[in-house]
């Protein structure tokens, strides 16, 4: 039985094709058309496996773009999908911290992949992947280099939470001659403490899986673990947790939309 999960995020679109214990994935930028990105991810998955639409029992769409992809059988929020995917990726995980392009979420689960409670950041971009991108640009760096640049540096205090004000703050810190690594470490800490504050209100997770694009940044992960005081892990497939969760839910509760 083949099922597919398509996670159309604000920055990247992830697709997972699941069959028994095997699964394959694709990742591509969402760009300006979530609908097109979702469709391309789906077709690429089918093409790689030599399958056609009718071979797939159920396709579940998730992520902010889930409403714009027409070929899915059902849409489920990324919160439910991340909880399910995390359970598959990290046995025993009972909390998921997901920091994506435009929002961050903390999800408390029952340890079996079901959501017990969750919190999401407010509607601004503070403490998200977009925030890191803006700051990286102000520092003349690529977002993928941030962790390396900040390694071992003593974090400087960043007081602004708003993306726009934080960018101004970073620029003035640079003007004062503060070391770039220290500024980046400060930014990492500010992202982590913002998310940790959300997590505190949900209750204690024992084992935390860190997912979403920002999970690729080890600097943020380190501060998260420190702020949360719990083991906070990233697995190689962390970014795919939502799409994988969608494919798993498609297999467990398959639905077929009339077409």
């Amino acid at each position: 039985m083949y099922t597919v999960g398509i996670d159309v995020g604000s920055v990247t679109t992830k697709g997972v094709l699941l069959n028994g214990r095997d699964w394959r994935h694709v990742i591509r930028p969402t760009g300006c058309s979530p609908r097109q990105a979702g469709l391309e991810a789906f077709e690429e998955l089918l093409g790689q496996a030599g399958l056609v639409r009718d071979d797939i029992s159920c396709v579940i769409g998730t992520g902010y773009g889930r409403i714009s992809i027409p070929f899915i059988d059902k849409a489920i929020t990324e919160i439910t999908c991340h909880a399910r995917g995390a359970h598959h990726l990290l046995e025993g995980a009972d909390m998921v911290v997901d920091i994506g392009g435009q929002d961050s979420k903390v999800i408390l689960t029952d340890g079996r992949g079901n959501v017990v409670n969750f919190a999401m950041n407010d509607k601004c971009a503070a403490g998200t992947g977009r925030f890191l991108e803006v700051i990286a640009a102000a520092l003349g760096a690529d977002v993928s280099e941030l962790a390396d640049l900040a390694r071992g540096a003593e974090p400087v205090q960043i007081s602004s939470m708003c993306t726009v004000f934080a960018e101004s703050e970073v620029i003035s810190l640079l003007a004062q001659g503060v070391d770039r690594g220290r500024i980046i470490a400060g930014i990492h800490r500010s992202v982590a403490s913002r998310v940790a504050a959300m997590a505190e209100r949900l209750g204690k997770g024992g084992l935390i899986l860190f997912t979403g694009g920002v999970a690729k940044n080890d600097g943020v992960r380190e501060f998260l673990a420190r702020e949360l005081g719990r083991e906070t892990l990233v697995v190689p497939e962390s970014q795919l947790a939502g799409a994988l969760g969608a494919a798993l839910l498609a297999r467990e509760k398959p639905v077929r939309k009339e077409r």
Partner: protein
Amino acid sequence: MRPQMMKIFENMRADNALTVQNAKDNGFKVVGMFCAFSPQELVLAAGALPVSLCGTRQEPIPAAEKTLPRNLCPLIKSSFGFAVTDTCPYFRASDFVIAETTCDGKKKMFELLAQYKPLHVMHLPQGTDRSGALQWWLEEMNLLKERLEEHLEVTINQEDLRAAIKLSNRERQALKNLLEVNRLDPAPLTGMDMLTAIWVRGFNVDKEEGIGLIEQLTEEIRNIAGQGISPFAKGTPRILLTGCPVGTGCEKVVRLLEECGGSVVCYENCTGIKTLEYLVDEDEQRDPMEAIAERYLQIPCSCISPNPGRLELISKLVADYQVDGVVDLSWQACHTYIVEGELVRRHVRDNCGVPYIQLETDYSTSDIEQLKTRISAFIEMLNGS
């Protein structure tokens, strides 16, 4: 099957704007009220028409922001914006306006609003757990009575007060009966329709006629329910909405809750049960002013500190309406409800055994997708999906 009566309720706010104008032309005085603490019995006893002025629409907010700070709650901005743009027929029709010191934002806004209308601000006590609170509030009632008599050039007598108490109690009871149809599972009326029906009470010019319409609607819904018909499938998660007031124009959270697969079965907020739960004591031996004061002081609003009545009411409603999840709606910058949300969260978690979510938003549509994600995930959680 949607009740036929709903069509009447849908058009009532617009239709009644004309009725208010006609009544004015016939010499009736109109008194605008901003909040559930305004004692409509005094207005009725003065022979005037009470109308609701609480701003629930986005449209006048930009005009209000020319004067008021942007990070103020949308209800205050909308209320003020309607007044300064002269776009609310009910504000325009008001000969006199009653306001209350419910929160800091409102009381200072009323100082600005006083330029536009003759306005009286009632001073609420901070809490109800001090010995002088009721006496304070009774004095405020007496002061309001004097102001009304002076402005409307009438005398409010005990007999008229007692009649107004009975009429207002009947209205409350009729509305409560209407709300209680949704104790049935599945609910026979959508939360959206319920909101439309209960919200227009503030624009009912003829109270008797209004009560009659509410009773007819309740009867029609009971008949529909009797045939086992509901807009919801069995098992649809049943939501209790608590928090800030909601009205037509700012119903987006109610709409999303139902679009995302929930059924809003009960309104705890001051649009709903909060103001209907308590009736004014009709005991003829008592001073009617004291009975009115006592009843209004029982309203469990977050502006009262402490406010245990709200928690008790939520517990009761969760049981009475077989609620599966509590949604606490806070308008942005409504400090009292946002902060009290933490107490509600703990109370619901520890005493009600159902999930709780606080949603903070404003009247705009800018965060619809983010809200949809939160709300869908909450409903998915209730469904154990």
